[in-house]
């Protein structure tokens, strides 16, 4: 697995810039993808360490991407941080995500929480309690 890769799947330019910067600061190689289908395509070829995922995406919605990548054995160690403005859909996908952030999400918040997530290996299918607190 490529320890260095972070995928920011976000269609809003500003949000993607902020998330990408937070990943860069953590020393990760960062790619920004701004549509759902492109994200699915890209995930066929790479194994990111962490994905920052928006739920409102063109073509394929974030929850479908989340389900697809959780069904993929290759991506079992990939951390997924969902960033959404909609608390209701956040609640629905919570069990599949490592962390759910309700927008507005601050740069420092994404940076610090992601750093803590990456510092511990991902237990199969479970969120790590420390990472969330």
């Amino acid at each position, binding site marked *: 697995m490529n320890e260095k890769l972070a995928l920011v799947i976000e269609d*809003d330019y*500003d*949000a993607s*810039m*902020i998330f990408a*910067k937070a990943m860069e*600061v953590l020393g990760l190689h960062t790619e920004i993808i701004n549509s759902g289908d492109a994200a699915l395509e890209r995930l066929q070829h790479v194994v990111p360490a962490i994905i920052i995922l928006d739920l*409102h995406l063109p073509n394929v919605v974030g929850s479908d991407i989340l389900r697809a990548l959780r069904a993929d054995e290759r991506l079992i160690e990939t951390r997924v941080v969902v960033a959404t*403005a909609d*608390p209701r859909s956040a*609640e629905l996908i919570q069990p599949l995500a490592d962390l759910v952030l309700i*927008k*507005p*999400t*601050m*740069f*420092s918040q994404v*940076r610090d929480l992601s750093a803590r997530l990456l510092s511990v290996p991902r237990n199969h299918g479970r969120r790590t309690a420390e990472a969330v607190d």
Partner: protein
Amino acid sequence: MQFVSSLLDIRSIDAEDARRRQLLNILLLGVAAIAVFALVAATLTILSSPQSEHGENLIMIGGSVFTLLGVGLLYLLNRRRAGWAAGALFLTLLTLVFAFADKPAEVAAGRSLFLFAIPILMASVLLFPAASFIAAVGAGIIVSVISVVSLDILPTMPAILGFFAVALVSWLSARSLQRALEDLRVTNRELDQRVIERTRDLAAALKRVQSESNKNQAILESIADGVIVFDHQGQAIVANPAITQFLNFPIEHIPGRDLSALMNGDVREADRNMMLGLLESDEPGRSGIKFDWGRKTVSVSVAAVRDGVGETTGTVMVMRDFTREAELDRMKSAFVSTASHELRTPLNAILGYSDMLQEGVYGELSDEQDGAIVRVVANTKRMLNLVNNLLDQAQIEAGQLKLRPSPVVIHELVDELEAIMGVLAEQKRLELVCSVDESAPDIVISDPQRLQQILVNLMGNAIKFTDTGSVRLRIYRTDAAHWALDVTDTGPGIPLEAQGFIFEAFRQVDDTVTRRHAGSGLGLSIVKQLVTLLGGEVSLISAVGRGSTFRIILPLTPIEEQHA
């Protein structure tokens, strides 16, 4: 029998006259029967022994024929003429027949004497009660004349006195009979009158009911909402034409069908079961239940139908076409959601970039630059808060703010609040004290997010308006079914005149305070509406210079999941 009674029947406006003449008819019939019997008997005697002397038999035949003729004439007279004429003639003839039917000695003082009692008795009932005396006088004269003229003896006084005694008895009994009959007739007349009056009243009442019912029917038929009434067996008994906009049945086919049959595949299984459940519940009384019926959205109100003494006799459902409102709701909801997204996104970007600048991502900032960024962040957060409040208010008004019940651990709630509010209190050097009484519940089923929103709002206000002293949160139980949260501050207090409107939207106590402590004036309005949604009440205890306590009392019973 019919024929006989029609023969005897007399029509007269005077009931007493009719009774007398009818009685005469009966007597005439009796006499005629005797005459016919005598005629037949005499004829048979002559035919059976042709050789014998037949003088007496021939006289009997002649007498019988003569009697029959007389009876016939009297009958005709009786039928045609009202009054005593026929009766008097009949009695006279009868008396004369008795006078000449036997030997003078027998008539005046022998076996035929008692026969005169018959016309005397009859006179009192056939003519009038006192007529028996006239008949007695007549009989007395006849007997006296026969005694003196034919027999040349003095009349038998005991016989004549006997006539008068019979006349007296007969007069008395006839008179009481007549009075009894008269009373009976009066009673009957009164009864008839009463029946007529009752019938008239009944007809009037019936007419009233009919017109009332017509009016009600007209009202029912002109109601734009569909109305349908079900009896205890769940069968439709009344429906108005407006109901056919939902049902695929002509109105006349509705009565007698049950709800399940009427809904007929156009309604989803779950909605149908919900409706049937409402109909079967003992205490139906719900309104504004919405579901899709075919291509329409229906809003239904259900209520029990009660009779005059409060017994339920069935269930009435009123169905309103809610399609357009539902569409507007959806549009409003879509608008709120879009506005929410569109307003928050740029604010979030501003916060994000400011945060990056503050964090030194683009290099170290000078103190002045840092100060400017702090102001940018503070103002953006204020703006974001305002947007959030407006959107909450819009959602509450649209009835779209749905509760999500889940267990709330009271100590966790308090810990979270201490973490959030502690920073703010510290900035203003205020003491923040959160306490949970022994009596307080450990866990309640409520909406944690909304509960926290309420308390953040109240405690945020308390911190905002208090310059020195403390802000306290106390959680305790008020009674077996309720728990309470008190947010108390040592701030300026709220004047009495403001306490009435403080929970209204867009209101703040006075403009100077508002200007100093920026806010939309929506916070307390949202608090009140959220508390109401959670099934509780919020109240205020405050006086100028004495601080304020906002008290929220919530039920311990779990809140219910709301359907979208």
